[in-house]
């Protein structure tokens, strides 16, 4: 029971990371109906943005690991990733918007490969140690909890889960309670009608890329707090799993992406804990194939009729 709870906690913190990345996939799919293959690599860029800015930003706040410094690093990485996402959309995806979807998909694969290999070229192919921005240690649980006191909960896990909840709440506010959010929802329902109602589609799409990429950048920093080893190919696996999470939750559906991320994280932790760690990656793909075969619209998504 204790071991199960422990795996659940580990799964939740990993699942939060997947959820943050999955949001980008699902938001872009919502407005453009295409899968941004390069999204996982934005997450990698976020980790490296933190890697390069952390020493400077930490020295601003006193030098050592601190919450204020970590918050600054997080914001810097989110801003840089948002910029990267907007630039990629502007250069590679916008000119192809009227083209068949396959063309855009191939371009996205090209962008993804470019970021991975360009990253290896510029950052170096070997894993690097992420600077310590928060003193991560296990939280001492009160002995009065009995058996539960033997659980290991780290400060990093609490921060990851807490930040994810805050970011999700902020995203919900933006999407549901702002004019831009309303424009995003209108665009995802019908782009032509939205533009007739005075929505600036290009601006809204740029904004969507900015928000989605910022979330991925935040995920890059949060993951590095827990596993301080980053490399230019770290986005491939995380990106694929987050994509599966987005499909599992129903692609285009924002709460679905968060739910899917958490489910994938927990499933993974359970497989690692109880079955065999080598089945971690095949399991995720098996989930994807099963979802697509039996409920392609995902857990929370609505089935779409094909229009002739």
């Amino acid at each position: 029971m204790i071991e199960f709870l422990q795996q659940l906690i580990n799964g939740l913190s990993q699942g939060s990371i997947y959820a943050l990345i999955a949001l980008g996939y699902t938001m872009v799919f919502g407005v453009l109906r295409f899968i941004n293959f390069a999204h996982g690599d934005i997450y990698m860029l976020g980790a490296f943005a933190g890697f390069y800015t952390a020493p400077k930003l930490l020295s601003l706040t006193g030098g050592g690991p601190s919450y204020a410094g970590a918050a600054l690093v997080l914001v810097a990485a989110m801003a840089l990733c948002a910029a990267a996402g907007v630039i990629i959309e502007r250069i590679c995806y916008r000119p192809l918007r009227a083209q068949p979807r396959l063309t855009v998909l191939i371009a996205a694969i090209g962008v993804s490969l470019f970021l991975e290999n360009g990253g290896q070229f510029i950052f170096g192919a070997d894993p690097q140690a992420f600077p310590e921005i928060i003193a991560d240690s296990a939280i001492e649980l009160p002995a009065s909890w009995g058996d539960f006191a033997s659980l290991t909960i780290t400060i990093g896990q609490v921060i990851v889960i807490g930040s994810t909840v805050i970011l999700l709440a902020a995203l919900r506010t933006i999407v549901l309670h702002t004019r831009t959010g309303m424009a995003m929802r209108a665009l995802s329902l019908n782009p032509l009608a939205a533009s007739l109602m005075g929505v600036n589609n290009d601006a809204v799409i740029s904004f969507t890329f900015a928000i989605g990429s910022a979330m991925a950048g935040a995920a890059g920093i949060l993951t590095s707090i827990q596993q301080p080893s980053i490399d230019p190919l770290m986005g491939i696996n995380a990106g694929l799993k987050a994509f599966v999470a987005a499909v599992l939750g129903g692609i285009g559906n924002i709460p679905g992406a968060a739910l899917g991320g958490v489910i994938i994280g927990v499933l993974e932790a359970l497989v690692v804990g109880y079955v065999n760690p080598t089945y971690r990656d095949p399991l995720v793909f098996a989930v994807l194939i099963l979802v697509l075969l039996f409920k392609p619209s995902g857990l929370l998504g609505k089935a779409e009729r094909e229009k002739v």
Partner: protein
Amino acid sequence: MRHPKSLLFIALALCAGASFFTGGINPYYYDILITIGINIILAVSLNLVTGYTGQFSLGHAGFMAVGAYSSAWITLTFGFVLGTSLPAAGSVYLLALFGGGLAAAAAGLLVGVPSLRLRGDYLAIVTLGFSEIIKGVIQNAEPLGAQRGLGGMVQHTNFFWTYAIVALSIYGILTLVHSTYGSGFLAVRDDEIAAESMGINTTKYKVLAFVIGAFMAGVAGGLYAHFKQFIHPEGFNFLKSVDIVVMVILGGMGSTAGVCLAAVILTILPEFLRTVSDYTWLPGPVRDLAENRMILYSLLLIILMLTRPQGLFGKLHFIRSKKS
């Protein structure tokens, strides 16, 4: 093509003739020559799936892996059942190539079935997922060497067999898609809904494309396994699939000649770039870039999509844009 069959026989005769002169070739060039042949088979077979039928697949290396491992397993297990003489071992090898192709075709059937319900982006991810699962299974299969790779195959693959199979593949694909039956593939690509309403069984064509494509990739895998004499699960990873996809896209989807040419160019290009990095008079960054061919490939993909999405040699507009 007025006399496709006689062209095929001429090609086969040329292969046989040329194979007498390959003995003296520098082993490095021989290696490139065989690799070109294997890549042509891979690219032509993916072209049937992606170029002619319009089903985007990112898992072709997975089918190649199935073919490579099953044929290697066959020759390692039954290699000398018929005796140790060259003709006996050679016929086991040919059977193994066929067996590898069949195993890959079975895998293709498995992938083809979900493809009935999926299109475009989803299909790309599912095929990618399938090839990752195949890799994962091999990595955990002790009889296949698991993480260590599988070695000890006899080098049966030579110039003649490679290029004979290249000729057969090109002949097979061309006659198939130019036949009345084969125009179904093009119909599925051009407009699935229209094809279906004309009474074409689109499901059958999609699965068939996957099965035939996978069969040929499996045979190519068998050739590869019996040429390199050592195979490793990481040799059939996502990047290998991307290599094949780039060949098809660069060549122009649905253009067999273009795809063959692209396979030749993209096999020689990395070797050429390797020599570029030895030219010390070039500025350092240029040499570094030349060494990292994947950066160039990715830029090539992006620029090609922005400027000439039908590929260098493609005439046709694959999948027409559909605005909903």
